[in-house]
């Protein structure tokens, strides 16, 4: 789960990390009022779950409250990577002597949480990794001991020569690690971590991604989810316990299992079509899930054909067949549907479908080919 910068900053602040104050505005007038309160130059930052905010014009300086109002007005009208900006964070502009990067991410290869720190901050860390890899220090943490003082200091001194600054950075890293573990995060990032001309070390940005699997344990974090900042179809799918990602094609896909769902999308492309989505109905499906899946898919006007690809293991194919029948009775389909079912209770499923006027195949390639054909030619219902 993504959370906003201002939310991550609250978590980091609670862990003791020094962060300049800031307040959230949803209208230009609020932004103006906040800027007036802080006085001096402020930064207005789009609160949106997308990277590259700066490049997209979502982060701007404002020297006066009036300018903060104008800038906020522009930013609040932006869409960044298709997501509407609904909130801005207004925060006093800090004087910056140097910028560093501090991040923690769970690393598959090392099977540990790994710190990544670099004195080259303020820019995309992937860029630093590609161009000047020697400027990044990686430090895996043994979860059983946590981040030890000497480890934090090693990283502090990698960032700063000045002992006071190095120690301040070390303490921030320990606090960041605590916040990371306590929140059940899979990523926590400060970019930039700055040194002011006075020598203070401050976090000017905050990013955190929380492991969805931890949310049951952390209701206070789960509450931070901002559904208005996500694509509506993805919110609907999550609430129906489906994994859905919208794509640009015209073959709507309903599949069980992530690997098979991706392989199905690939096969659509292999036969010359374009998938309209990734949709995984998961393991133990019930008819209700299928009904919801069809609702989500048919809401996309680009979809010209619907393809079901179900390999029943835990999933019972008769559940899926019942779901298809129920869903299409409630909302008759306007586009053709191609069904491929095999596995658990296949015979029962085929009978249910036949009795209700559907045809189904047990062959994946055959079904995909047909769905692509129907989508491109706008053919009639199967």
């Amino acid at each position: 789960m993504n959370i906003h910068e201002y939310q991550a900053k609250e978590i980091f602040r609670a862990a003791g990390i020094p962060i300049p104050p800031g307040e959230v505005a949803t209208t230009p007038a609020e932004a103006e009022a906040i800027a007036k309160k802080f006085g001096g130059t402020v930064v207005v930052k789009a609160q949106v779950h997308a990277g590259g905010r700066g490049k997209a014009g979502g982060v701007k300086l404002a020297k006066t409250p009036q300018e903060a109002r104008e800038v906020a007005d522009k930013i609040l009208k932006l869409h960044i990577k298709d997501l509407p900006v609904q909130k801005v964070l207004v925060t006093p502009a800090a004087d910056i002597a140097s910028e560093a990067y501090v991040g923690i991410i769970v690393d598959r290869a090392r099977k540990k949480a790994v710190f990544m720190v670099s004195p080259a901050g303020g820019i995309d860390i992937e860029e630093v990794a590609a161009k000047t890899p020697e400027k990044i220090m990686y430090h895996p943490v043994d979860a059983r001991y946590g981040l030890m003082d000497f480890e934090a200091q090693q990283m502090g001194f990698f960032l700063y020569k000045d002992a006071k600054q190095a120690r301040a950075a070390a303490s921030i890293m320990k606090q960041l690690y605590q916040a990371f573990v306590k929140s059940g995060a899979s990523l926590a990032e400060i970019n930039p971590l700055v040194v002011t001309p006075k020598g203070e070390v401050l976090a000017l940005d905050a990013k955190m991604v929380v492991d969805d699997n931890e949310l049951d344990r952390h209701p206070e974090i789960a509450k931070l989810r901002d559904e208005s900042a996500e694509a509506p179809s993805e919110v609907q799918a999550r609430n129906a316990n489906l994994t859905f990602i919208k794509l640009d094609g015209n073959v709507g896909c309903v599949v069980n299992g992530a690997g098979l769902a991706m392989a199905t999308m690939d096969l659509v492309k292999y036969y010359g079509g374009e998938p309209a989505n990734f949709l995984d109905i998961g393991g133990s499906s019930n008819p209700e899930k299928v009904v919801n899946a069809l609702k989500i898919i048919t809401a996309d006007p680009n979809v010209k054909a619907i393809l079901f690809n179900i390999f029943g293991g835990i999933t019972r194919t008769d559940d899926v067949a019942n779901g298809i029948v129920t869903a299409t009775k409630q909302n008759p389909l306007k586009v053709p549907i191609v069904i491929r079912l095999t596995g658990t209770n296949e015979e029962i499923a085929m009978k249910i479908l036949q009795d209700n006027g559907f045809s189904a195949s047990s062959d994946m390639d055959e079904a995909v080919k047909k769905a692509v054909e129907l989508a491109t030619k706008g053919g009639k219902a199967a």
Partner: protein
Amino acid sequence: MSIFIDNSTTVIVQGITGRDGSFHAKQMMEYGTKIVAGVTPGKGGQKFEDKVPVFNTVAEAMKATNANTSVIYVPPMYAADAILEAADAGVKFIVAITEGVPVLDMTRVYPFVKEKGARLLGPNCPGLITPGQSKVGIIPGRICTPGPVGVVSRSGTLTYEVVYQLTRAGLGQTTCVGIGGDPINGTNVIDCLAAFEKDPATKVVCMMGEIGGTDEQEAAEFVKKNMKKPVVGFIAGQTAPPGRRMGHAGAIISGSAGTAAEKIQAFKDAGMGVAQRPLDFVELVRARLK
């Protein structure tokens, strides 16, 4: 022959009285798997299906049965502890089926299991099956048939799809292993490849990967350096947009490491066969069995 499990494998089911655990314990027993004990705290002393003794702890179950394998169906928030308990009790092969185990839990579990000298498969995996002998997990038994093909995969239903295509074409399997798609898991693709290379009955290996991470590139490197047996590979997610999570946490493309194109190139560089789609496995495997 086979890898990891055969007809001598003895299994403890952790979570045997739960909804998933009881269903799959029955399925495994029907398939012929030797289920020797179950564990559910608080239900010690009961018998599962009038046959299998249930214990409160894995330690007690081990004392009574000395099983070599355990399979875990406990809910996600307790799964990490169940793995630790099994490793601590001396179980040598632990198969964790549970989906949704927090990744930070796994950062603690992995080093512990390793220190105990146990092998972990999963979590969030379908388990494994040696057709005709034993199955541990949830892979449907009837889509498999004994034969010379080793199968290793990161996903569940995609594994079923490929195995089904192989079986339909008369190409049986030594063992089919689903390692799971979580970011941190126990047994990896290379562990399975190494085991298949050593298994005299396995003549060809099929490997299904996904976008994200570098597991497949490393596996390809291993094939090139250490394997004499032919390997055929497939990558799911060739059309996935960059940076989006597709169900499995594994399917994240970060930077350039982990794209389908990169992985397929690594397969080609290692001299592996490359299946464009699941059906292609049939011809590629057949050609390599000749």
